[in-house]
């Protein structure tokens, strides 16, 4: 029993990090936008904005409750060469991303998006919307007010959400296996663990990856909890 990681474990670890970082980085801007819309867009009397908001909320939250395998399957159908996204990418960029780590990043992004949006939305909801009105009265346009007031005030919530989404992405299995597969040298941490457990004596070999997963998850949860609390305390001040 050596504590050193095998090349296979290293590749799983680095792939997981790369996928997680890209997934979070790419989904952060749209998540902030959606979270802000959901947080502010609450008071309308008309049915159309209310229905739109409900639909948006539903679409965003769906991956939270759908079995990840189903999310993965739907993604697969979109990404296959004949699928809507697959066809577009092939025509426009001439690339096929199915079974590459890009596809895994997309799967992670989709699955962790609801967590990201929820955390950021809470951060925005904790901010007095009149602060933005005050900013606009002082000469700031709506976009200016958002970037100079709301976003800086919500930034701890944004980071907490990003950490949480990153952790979720590290743990992603169901959707990832659908679009990445489980090929040697191309497995994320959960895929590597799953593959190892299917080999004779593999259960004993995967303890290092299991340990790493548990530690990363604990760290991420603690960090995001701490950040959210700080955000909350600051709002009280």
């Amino acid at each position, binding site marked *: 029993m050596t504590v050193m990681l095998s090349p296979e474990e290293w590749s799983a670890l680095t792939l997981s990090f790369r996928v997680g970082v890209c997934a979070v980085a790419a989904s952060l801007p749209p998540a902030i936008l959606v979270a802000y819309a959901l947080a502010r867009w609450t008071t309308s*009397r008309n049915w159309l904005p209310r229905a739109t908001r409900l639909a948006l909320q539903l679409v965003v939250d769906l991956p939270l409750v759908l079995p990840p395998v189903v999310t993965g399957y739907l993604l697969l159908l979109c990404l296959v060469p004949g699928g809507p996204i697959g066809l577009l990418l092939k025509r426009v960029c001439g690339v096929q991303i199915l079974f590459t780590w890009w596809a895994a990043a997309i799967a992670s992004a989709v699955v962790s998006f609801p967590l990201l949006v929820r955390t950021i939305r809470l951060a925005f909801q904790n901010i*007095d919307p*009149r*602060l933005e*009105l*005050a*900013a*606009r*009265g*002082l*000469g*700031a*346009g*709506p976009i*200016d007010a958002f970037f*100079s*007031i709301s976003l*800086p*005030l919500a930034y701890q919530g944004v980071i907490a959400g990003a950490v949480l989404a990153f952790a979720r992405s590290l743990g992603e299995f169901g959707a990832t296996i659908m679009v990445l597969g489980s090929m040697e040298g191309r497995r994320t941490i959960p895929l590597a663990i799953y593959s190892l457990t299917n080999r004779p004596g593999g259960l004993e070999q995967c303890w290092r990856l299991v340990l790493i997963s548990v530690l990363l998850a604990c760290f991420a949860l603690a960090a995001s909890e701490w950040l959210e609390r700080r955000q909350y305390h*600051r*709002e009280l*001040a």
Partner: protein
Amino acid sequence: MSWLELDCRHRYPAGLEIDVAFRAEHQVVGVFGPSGSGKTSLLSMIAGVLRPDEGQIVLAGQPLLDTRRGIALAPAQRRVGMLFQDHLLFPHLSVEGNLRYGLSRRRSTEPPVDFARVVQVLELRELLARPPRSLSGGEKQRVALARALLSGPRALLLDEPLTALDQPLKQRILVYLERVLSQWRIPTLLVSHVAADLRRLAEWTIVIDQGRVVAGGPPAEVLADEIEPEKSWNESR
């Protein structure tokens, strides 16, 4: 020559119906009425943060709103300085950051405002580096007033600037307010439900009740019969 002409109607889903029309000719015009009578709504319409169902608002000859002609200026373009009851200082900026927020967003065509003079008149030099949460209520009030002044407003909208303060503090803020009003001579709407404050500061007062203007005239006349607890303090005659 009136600096403000207003004629607006707005109905809240909860029931209150506002139907106000008046002209402001004096520099400091008081708006008197019990809470829930529509005073804050009136200021919000002028500031552009509440869009009335229909009506017109003309400030210094420029239409801010005309629902029939489809005119509705964004809050940032109206250049009115609104002072909220609870100050709404930006919690993530220092006092100086708050003061410079509006200053840096003024258009170059507008007349300059002397930062040093505002800081001096409102005695803010010692506070510049501090975060808003460390300020007392009176200090916050002065910072908010300075911030509004520094945005170069064509009119000041003061929403119950004295209500949250205890008596000794209120006396000191009154002094500051009088100083600002006399030094900069900015047209001002002063909302209050305390007759004594209006008698001291306003040259003209309208009285609002249940969304309608019920009286208008010199404070000493229209407020003469008002019964209000502050009278017992007997401090301002």
